[in-house]
């Protein structure tokens, strides 16, 4: 086609990120695994099917010639005409079947691929170190698992088939044209070149506006979200005018870019039409001259009338396919980025498992840092005897969860060791470490499922009696009984549980788990007094006879604990019993006393 123009123009269009593009596609192909054969089959089908469509015009030419030949004489060879007609029907039928099978295969493959991607992402979530989730937003992961995979599935389905058929169509129609009549072929190609050039220009130009449009949409979304969510403040401060001013300017920009991008992309169709028509006339005029000069038959013109269409169609399709492939690559990149994240370190080769757990815990010179070079725990050592209670205290954000992270082996220590009953947790399987602990965290986690399912969770062999008992222990049994279906009530967005009730269910879950050690976050924010008492009783119950690590908020817990770890700015700054720490006269006593004065006025 456009010998000189084409190559010069194409890099401009594709220059976005060609290297990542090929790489992403390579990965996607290798990810296809057994489906690769199916894809090859569909590619072959697409090529064959398209070639068959191309044969059509050639036969239609013969048909026209036969008819035209009989115009003057009045005798048409109907036998030959039927022969061609049936042949064409056979070809159309076969190519329809082939194209359908090809579409079917690609639809299947891309959906199966999407499914596989989703599964892998879901599994990956469970194999990533917690570090990953602490540093990236869950919205981002979520959008990779759904939006990106969806884009991948949809665009792959459309773009592969489209690309193959359009390329085959373009090349094939070119070959057929040259084969049928090379002069006419040259005429057709030349008459289309100018139009193609314009199309490419428009596409490039409109891409710029699509970018601007996306950006403006983003701005609009951001502004509207900000103002709507700050509705109360905007109203009280009478900030509507200010908001409106900003809105107007974004709205103006948005309308302008929407106009430009939509207008430009709308130009493609009429332009294609014009190229087709223009090509048509050229074919007719030049063809007529040639027919009159006796250089070819009129049937050739008829064939070329169709070739013009077949030749002009694929270019727009190729552009479309290419955009599709680019979004596949972009989505694929994001999905692969997640799937290729570094996983948790390998488990030890011959893990040790505790048979009977005493609950003896020892921290031996533990050093730890979230970010290399910024150590937060500097050589912490402590020995905790079975059944003792350890209170972790400190202001919000002081890094109290660090201790939970280390004990549960959510994070590994930099150096030093944590031993349970004399065995380093590094020598155990992670799942075995988890089995040692009951854990109740502050952000209660309830999933969509029945009350019972939420309490039993994944523990096997739990009887209904155990569930009821646990609920009675945390004082929520009565409430559950008042729910429409009792323990089988679905908990979802429509059933509104209070914060306290959610917390009670979480504690019940931990009671059913019944592990030998306990990690507990005492914070009971925003619950009414009665519920708070029930929760606190349940928590106290749980600590009996268990080695317990309590993120403590109650003075009674702190006073009664065997060891207090005071955390501040991520570090353990002081450790000891309540009396020891008071006597030391440092941060703990300062904070304690200033609070005491505050409360002591009454």
């Amino acid at each position: 086609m456009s010998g000189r123009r084409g190559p010069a123009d194409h890099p401009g269009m594709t220059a976005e990120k060609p290297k990542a593009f090929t790489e992403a596609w390579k990965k996607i192909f290798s990810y296809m695994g057994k489906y690769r054969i199916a894809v090859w089959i569909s590619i072959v089908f697409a090529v064959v099917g398209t070639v068959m469509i191309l044969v059509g015009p050639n036969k239609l030419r013969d048909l026209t010639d036969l008819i035209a030949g009989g115009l003057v004489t009045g005798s048409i060879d109907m036998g030959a005409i039927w022969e061609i007609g049936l042949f064409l029907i056979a070809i159309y039928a076969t190519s329809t079947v082939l194209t359908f099978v090809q579409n079917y295969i690609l639809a299947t493959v891309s959906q199966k691929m999407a499914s596989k991607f989703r599964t892998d992402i879901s599994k990956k979530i469970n194999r990533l170190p917690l570090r990953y989730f602490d540093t990236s937003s869950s919205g981002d992961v979520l959008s990779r698992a759904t939006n990106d995979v969806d884009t991948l599935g949809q665009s792959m389905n459309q773009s592969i088939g489209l690309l193959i058929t359009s390329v085959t169509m373009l090349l094939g129609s070119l070959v057929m044209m040259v084969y049928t009549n090379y002069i006419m072929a040259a005429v057709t190609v030349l008459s289309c070149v100018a139009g193609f050039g314009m199309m490419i220009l428009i596409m490039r130009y409109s891409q710029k506006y699509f970018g601007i449009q996306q950006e403006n949409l983003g701005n609009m979304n951001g502004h509207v979200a900000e103002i709507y969510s700050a509705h109360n403040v905007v109203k009280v401060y009478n900030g509507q005018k200010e908001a409106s001013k900003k809105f107007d300017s974004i709205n103006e920009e948005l309308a302008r870019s929407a106009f430009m991008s939509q207008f430009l992309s709308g130009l493609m169709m009429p332009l294609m039409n014009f190229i087709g028509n223009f090509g048509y006339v050229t074919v007719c005029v030049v063809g007529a001259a040639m027919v009159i000069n006796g250089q070819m038959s009129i049937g050739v013109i008829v064939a070329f009338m169709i070739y013009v269409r077949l030749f002009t169609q694929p270019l727009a399709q190729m552009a479309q396919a290419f955009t599709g492939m680019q979004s596949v690559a972009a989505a694929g990149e994001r999905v692969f980025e997640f799937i290729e994240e570094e996983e948790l370190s390998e488990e030890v080769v011959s893990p040790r498992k505790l048979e009977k757990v005493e609950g003896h815990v020892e921290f031996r010179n533990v050093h730890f840092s979230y970010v290399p070079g910024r150590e937060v725990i500097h050589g912490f050592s402590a020995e905790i005897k079975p059944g003792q209670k350890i209170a972790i205290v400190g202001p919000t954000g002081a890094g109290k969860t660090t201790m939970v992270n280390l004990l549960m082996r959510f994070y590994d220590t930099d150096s030093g060791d944590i031993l349970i009953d004399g065995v380093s947790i590094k020598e155990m399987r992670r799942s075995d470490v988890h089995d040692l602990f009951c854990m109740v965290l502050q952000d209660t986690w309830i999933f969509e499922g029945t009350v019972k399912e939420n309490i039993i969770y994944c523990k096997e062999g739990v009887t209904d009696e155990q569930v009821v008992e646990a609920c009675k222990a945390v004082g929520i049994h009565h409430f559950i009984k008042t729910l429409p279906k009792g323990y089988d009530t679905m908990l979802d967005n429509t059933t509104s549980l209070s914060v306290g009730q959610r917390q009670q269910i979480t504690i019940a879950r931990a009671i059913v788990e019944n592990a030998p050690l306990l990690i507990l976050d005492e914070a009971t924010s925003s619950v009414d007094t009665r519920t708070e008492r029930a929760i606190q009783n349940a928590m106290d119950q749980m600590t009996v006879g268990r080695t317990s690590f309590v993120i403590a908020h109650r003075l009674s817990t702190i006073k009664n604990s065997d060891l207090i770890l005071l955390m501040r700015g991520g570090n353990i700054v002081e450790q000891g019993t309540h009396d020891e720490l008071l006597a030391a006269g440092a941060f703990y006593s300062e904070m304690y006393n200033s609070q005491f004065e505050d409360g002591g006025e009454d």
Partner: protein
Amino acid sequence: MILKYVSKKEWSLVAACFVLICLQVYLELEIPGYMSQITTLLTTGGTVAQVMDEGWPMIACAFGSLLAAIVVGAVATYVAASLSKRIRKMQFDNVETFSMEEIGRFSLASLITRSTNDITQVQMAFAMGMQILIKAPVMAIWAIVKISDKDMSWTIATAVAVAVMMVTIGIIMVLVVPRFKIIQKLTDNLNQITGEGLSGVRVVRAYNAESYQEEKFEKANEDLTSTNLFVNRSLAVLFPMMTAIMSLLSLSIYMIGAILISAAAGVGERLTLFSDMIVFSSYAMQVVMAFMMMVFIFMILPRATVAARRIEEVINTEPSITDGTKTSSPEGREGEIEFRNVSFKYPGAAESVLEDISFKVKKGETIAFIGSTGSGKSTLINLVMRFYDVTGGQVLVDGEDVRDYKLNALRRKIGYIPQKATIFSGTVYGNVNYGDTSEERTIEDVKKAVGIAQGTDFVEKMDGGYEGRIAEGGTNLSGGQKQRLSIARAICRKPEFYIFDDSFSALDYKTDRSLRDALKKETAGVTSLIVAQRIGTIMDADTIVVLDEGRIAGIGAHDDLLESSEVYREIAYSQLSEEELVR
């Protein structure tokens, strides 16, 4: 319908479009006529010059139709863009008049979608739909008229093709369209499960529930995949069928032509039939295409209609809070707030949130509200700002019923600090000096306000200081920093009343303390309303109102309440530990 928002000028543009589209169709349909002339010339041995005589007007027609199409495209997109700009503005302006009740009814997420996605949908559908809905019928009818005088058997072939196509598309649509909704639901379900797994990642690990979680996901994944497969496989039929129908139609027109011609008597008749055949084959394509376009637009339109309806819902919603007329208040009663037997019930709710609340605050006093969750504390202060209207009794600000004030005037008196700090993208300065009093304040006021709010340190350390950039949602600030800016905003406004809705809980103990000390010193004479969870925050208040299930369970100073109010004592004792606690 959304069409009523189309302006007169835009309607005249639409009318112009109609004329232009007719012109475009006319020109497009002229082309086959020339083609037929050319074909006849070719078969009867016309000269090149003769062919050119027909060729030039044909190119002119093609070019004319291109120009018409471009103009139509431009006009249609212009109308769509300006219409959607106006609707978006109307929607935004109306939302700005909403009270909290209307915001709550629509939900935030839904309002945002309605202002962005829904409008984009309408815009696209309008621009495209307008062109196709005009062009397709004009094209179909005109083309049919043009070919109706040709031989019937061709017409029948075309009709059969159109019928087969419509039936095919119809069947596929019946199969597929309802499943689109199912897919949406299944996707939501998958999202939900993934979201749960992410938010509960620690719990999942702690309970070794990885495989439980994966199985659950896999089930949702399978459901989604199988529905997706069905839909995509069904759609796989569509394109090959279309191509087949079109090809077979051309073929049958030629075959019929052959039969007709071989049966015809004279040369002249045969020639006419031959040129008819060629013309017909291209008109028939136009007819088929026109019907195809119509079918597709009927697939797009329902979605756009839903979007349009959602937009209209917002535009047509009347705010439940209406403006009063007064801008000033009676002499000598500044700084007073009085509740007279106030009760409040959320619309549609069975029980009242507040019942028979009466109290009075004088200028410069501090009044605090405490009680468990759901006791109505936040609702109570919302009534002062008129986010909602009372359902019984009266709220008086400066001796005047809040409902009599112009909303602007009422709210100018108030410096409000919500529970969740609200930060706008922009600068520190813009965030602190915010609202309708901003022109009266200077950078000095801002600095002073930030100072009282204990924010000088971190603001001056920021890149650009008071002109430092603040990202959307204030993501480059910590929770405590955001809250301090939010407090500074209220201070900078120099209001008659401060309303703190549990605003101190995001601050650590020390900051909380020094901030309250500074406030007390700098803002003497300003009335404060404080909602709090922590007894420590409100102990010094002149009056404490204890709320329990929407009623006043005690009112008085801290010491009195400890003696007289059971509920207050209960709250105080349950928090005593927390009070003494290092926090």
